[in-house]
């Protein structure tokens, strides 16, 4: 088994020959066994990245390796739930699960898939077309998890769910990761929604990787500082974002060493980090590469 779940080098994807680039120059590595939040505003390129990793389309340039091989070859070991949760509307819930069993001979976890569906009080005889958005999400997740994937790609999995179902299904996902070491990449534009569940971050903005790495390491690499606007001393540090209100200056920086001068410093939250980078498109990207060890 590869110790890398996803690795991108110079990855780019453009729709149409003269279309805009949805992704450009993307390079990052997601180690196996991590739960990765793929965060970015609408239109940032998150869904494109998922579709590339799922092997549903080819990159325009660069390379993407999934579970140590090409996305197409990795497909039997990858579970993918697209944002629209595509299912066959005319099938019942039970028929959908039977389809999952037929399509994944030898790896299908019938009990696991049925447990996820049962958690939502779903009648197995109900047709997909008459399910609510949240119920469809539940069936789509059951289908993806029943495959016992090594890598789960979930595009906005929690968007349709009420808070109770969200907590429940996030618990199921975390339980799967704990039990089988499944790598999970899930996108969201709400950081708070995924913060507690993820240990790795991939922040995408305007088709580029802005931040990538272990969340604790990324947080440790940044500092929030506040002080008088006349204070010197931020030279030498990378200033991601700074704002002046009256005589007060507050900034998010990547310190190059100890911060000297009369600054109040504070550890940033993940949301601070994400928002500061999205508000400052010119700030340099940061990719923290981890050692090759679990």
């Amino acid at each position: 088994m590869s110790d890398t779940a996803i690795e991108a080098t110079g990855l780019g994807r453009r729709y149409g020959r003269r279309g805009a680039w949805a992704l450009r120059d993307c390079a990052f590595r997601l180690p196996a066994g991590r739960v990765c939040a793929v965060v970015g505003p609408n239109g940032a390129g998150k869904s494109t990245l998922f579709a590339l990793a799922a092997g549903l389309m080819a990159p325009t340039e660069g390379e993407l390796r999934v579970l140590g091989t090409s996305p197409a070859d990795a497909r039997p070991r990858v579970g993918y739930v697209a944002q629209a949760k595509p299912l066959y509307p005319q099938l019942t819930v039970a028929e959908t699960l039977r389809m999952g069993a037929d399509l994944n001979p030898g790896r299908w976890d019938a009990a696991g898939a049925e447990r996820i569906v049962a958690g939502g009080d779903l009648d197995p005889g109900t047709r997909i077309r008459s399910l609510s958005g949240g119920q469809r999400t539940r069936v789509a997740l059951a289908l993806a998890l029943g495959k016992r994937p090594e890598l789960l790609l979930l595009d906005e999995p929690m968007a349709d769910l009420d808070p109770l179902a969200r907590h429940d299904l996030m618990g199921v996902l975390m339980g799967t990761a704990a039990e089988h070491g499944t790598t999970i990449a899930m996108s969201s534009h709400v950081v708070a929604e995924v913060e507690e569940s993820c240990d790795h971050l991939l922040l995408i903005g305007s088709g580029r990787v802005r931040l990538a790495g272990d969340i604790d390491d990324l947080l440790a690499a940044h500092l929030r500082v506040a002080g008088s606007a006349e204070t010197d001393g931020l030279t030498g540090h990378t200033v991601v974002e700074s704002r002046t209100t009256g005589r007060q200056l507050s900034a998010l920086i990547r310190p190059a060493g100890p911060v000297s001068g009369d600054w109040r410093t504070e550890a940033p939250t993940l949301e601070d980090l994400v928002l500061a980078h999205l508000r400052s498109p010119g700030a340099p990207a940061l990719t923290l590469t981890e050692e090759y060890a679990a």
Partner: protein
Amino acid sequence: MVEYRIDRHSGVATYVQIVQQTKQALRLGLLRPGDQLPTAREVVEATAINPNTVLKAYRELEREGLVEARRGMGTFVRRTLGAAPADSPLRGELEEWAGRAVAAGWDRDDMAALFTAVLDKSFQGERS
């Protein structure tokens, strides 16, 4: 068995909350030597937090000698913490004292203030 409650808005790191709640359970005698901590899977299914956060907390407790991981079996309590189990005779004495204070017309803040003052005096020089 202990059940963890994660407060997302406390500002306390999640793994630290698990460490603290485990220690609290040890102090109160809710967890005793030989007891098993919930598996990482059980904790994350109930709380939806990241499995590595639970493992980090358990490693911390192991480093402090409070629990031990037995391969393929789970994580077990090695020793208790403090000498204040819920059924200690000292607790009975404190309850009696609280009863007398209430009878004498003291309110909760009076009692808490006195208790804290005595606590501070008993542990002068130590940081809480």
